[in-house]
């Protein structure tokens, strides 16, 4: 029996049951809607916030919104359908409210065609007397259930959290660039009459820092120069506000310097890991040889040997020690020491001191026993020829060509000019001369380095 036909067929007492059933169905729908609308709205707002903050693209935000709405509709349907009250349940509610003894249940569910008319009319008559006690709006009002409050509250909390945490996360993930901060500082300085002269260099530096074409080392030099200027100015400055501005600028520049230093190291590391060319401050010819030394298979014999030595460096054969050739290694290390202890004609006067200091540092990093062994050359005869590896001879690697490896600091110092170098030289006066490479040097050519190459980053720790 379809409910619609029943509505026409049945008279008043039964219609109360059908109306209540429909009303309870609406209540169930509202329950489901109120339960799921807050999370869906929260999801939509979240998508909007993410879109506004440029966290997601418009397509992703739209897709998220559509999915949220779809899932919400599905959830509402799944929650609503089992909760649609059945007719007997509604009838029993009416019976309870009216104090009837299943009058409405019988009227609403019985097959009227098989009922004797006198009995049916009697039942209707009884039900009509009772139906006055029921008022649907009064007796069955809609009440918002506790889960709805929970749903709304938790959605609101989630949304607020997202709203407040997004900028924080954004600042953490995409911080304001140093150059931007420098620009802001420059603007502030420009407003201060006594600092006006520093504003322009600061802006220029900010622009320089953003310029990807400029080498990090050059940027670093520029930063250091300005840092020095600011430091000098800060000493002279008496006004507190200006001092504060200068302090901020100094801090920012310090940060910029560190960033550039790290950036430079990263760049070098990437180059060495990626099999790229060794970046050299040598002329083009030297760079070509550097390429060969990476094992590019050049025909030049020197290049080959250099490649071999570089390979050895990478494998740690020479310096780290080959268990099969301990004496040879020691000899080679010793030879290396001997070489670097000699003054390098290609390097400024400060270098021996610096190298010595580096050696001291490196010695503490490497195993002490090994270092001691390498520092104390064996007095015995050179190892037998059978211990030599291919390409090695009595005097070390046959036909080897050696480079003096320069640390990035050295390169920077050189590019800064004489004054800086002099300063460093003074500062590093106490350093001992240390080997700048773990490439074995032949005994007869202790200072045979002909080229300068930046020290690969991964070896810096070893040398120091």
């Amino acid at each position: 029996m379809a409910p619609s036909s029943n509505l026409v067929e049945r008279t008043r007492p039964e219609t109360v049951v059908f109306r209540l059933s429909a009303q309870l169905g609406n209540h169930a729908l509202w329950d489901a809607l109120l339960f799921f609308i807050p999370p869906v709205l929260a999801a939509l707002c979240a998508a909007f916030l993410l879109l506004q903050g440029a966290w997601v693209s418009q397509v992703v935000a739209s897709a998220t919104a559509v999915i949220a709405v779809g899932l919400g509709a599905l959830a509402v349907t799944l929650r609503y359908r089992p909760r649609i009250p059945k007719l007997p349940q509604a009838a029993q509610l009416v019976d309870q409210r009216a104090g009837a003894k299943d009058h409405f249940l019988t009227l609403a569910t019985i097959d009227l065609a098989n009922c004797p008319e006198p009995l049916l009319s009697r039942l209707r008559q009884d039900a009509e007397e009772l139906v006055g006690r029921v008022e649907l709006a009064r007796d069955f009002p809609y009440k918002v259930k506790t889960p709805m409050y929970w749903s709304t509250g938790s959605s609101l909390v989630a949304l607020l959290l997202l709203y407040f945490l997004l900028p924080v996360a954004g600042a953490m993930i995409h911080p304001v660039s140093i150059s931007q901060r420098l620009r802001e500082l420059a603007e502030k300085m420009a407003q201060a009459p006594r600092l006006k002269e520093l504003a322009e260099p600061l802006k220029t530096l900010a622009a320089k820092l953003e310029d990807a074409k400029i080498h990090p080392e050059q940027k670093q030099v520029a930063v250091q120069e300005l840092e020095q200027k600011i430091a000098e100015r800060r000493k002279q400055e008496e006004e507190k506000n200006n001092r504060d501005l200068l302090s901020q600028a100094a801090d920012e520049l310090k940060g910029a310097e560190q960033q550039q230093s790290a950036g430079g190291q990263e760049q070098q590391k990437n180059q060495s890991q990626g099999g790229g060319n060794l970046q050299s401050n040598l002329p083009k010819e030297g760079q070509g040889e550097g390429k060969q030394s990476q094992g590019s298979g050049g025909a030049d014999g020197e290049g080959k040997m250099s490649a071999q030595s570089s390979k050895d460096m990478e494998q740690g054969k020479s310096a780290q020690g080959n268990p099969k050739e301990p004496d040879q290694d020691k000899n080679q290390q010793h030879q290396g020491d001997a070489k670097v202890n000699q003054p390098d004609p290609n390097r400024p006067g400060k270098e021996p001191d610096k190298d010595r200091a580096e050696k001291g540092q490196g010695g503490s990093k490497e195993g002490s026993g090994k270092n001691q062994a390498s520092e104390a050359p064996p007095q015995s005869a050179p190892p037998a020829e059978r211990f030599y590896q291919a390409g090695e001879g009595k005097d070390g690697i046959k036909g080897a060509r050696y480079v003096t490896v320069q640390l990035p600091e050295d390169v920077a110092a050189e590019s800064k000019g004489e004054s800086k170098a002099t300063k460093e030289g003074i500062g590093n006066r106490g350093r001992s001369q240390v080997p700048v490479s773990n490439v074995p040097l032949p005994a007869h050519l202790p200072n045979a380095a002909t080229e300068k190459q930046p020290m690969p980053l991964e070896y810096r720790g070893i040398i120091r």
Partner: protein
Amino acid sequence: MEPERFQETFKRLESEIQRVIVGHDEAIRKVLIAFFAGGHILLEGVPGLGKTLLVKSLSHALGISFKRIQFTPDLMPSDIVGTEVLTDNNGRREFQFKQGPIFAHVVLADEINRATPKTQSAVLEAMEEKQVTVFGESHILESPFMVLATQNPIELEGTYPLPEAQLDRFFFKLLVAPPAPDQLREILKRTTGADVSECAMVLPNDSGKLVNDMKLLLRQVMIAPPIEDYVVRLVHATQANGQNGGAANTSVKQFIRFGSSPRGAQAIILGAKGNALAEGRVHVSYEDVEKVISAALRHRIILNFQAEAENVSADQILVEVMKQVKRN
């Protein structure tokens, strides 16, 4: 017949019997319901509680014939159903069927468990088929026909407990409890004084048609499908080991050997209909069902030895079943 007339007649009968029988109001109502539903009653109680008086009062109030059979071990089936006797009819000798005491509207089978199973089974056909067969010839019992059997629960020596098949044929099994002190005082007052009250006839002598109309009306009482479903679930719930999809609860599994037969469900619904009419309604409610369920099922569920050992009654189990089975 109008429901109002049914209710009026029912109330008059009830009050008339209550005038003679002190207490046992529920038993009186259920006896009347069973009568109009066309069922038979098994009354169980110790001697002297007014079982026989109740039946006699019922038949008197109804204005219908009443016979009593005292069941003894030597009682023969022919003593109940009747036999062929040789008679002289105008010089012509022929066998003539002599009706036994079963040929009455209301038959009181007093202490039915004292008779042998052979004799007991003679009552079976009469109860179920409303006819008896003697020497191959069937004799229809006049409607209305009702057997009210009594049995004594304490004197079990030398008795023949009714088999399950015969128990199932009783519409209700009513337990006649001893009267409360107030009721006993009233009994004494009514029976030991000079003026002993007797039951008046409520229905006229030719009340057969009226009774049949009332019986028909009872069957027309409406019952909602959810309530029917409730009865079905109740009866299924008495099935031990979840027979026929019944979800037996722990006490059912533990103490019931066999659950109720479909006759149990029939008895519940007819009894509920009778109760509804008696209360002036033309439809059955859940309450009607719950009022008659014990009377309709207590003799239809067969308890096991454990239940007897632990003194668990069928009524206790039925209460558990009603708790388990929820209304729709």
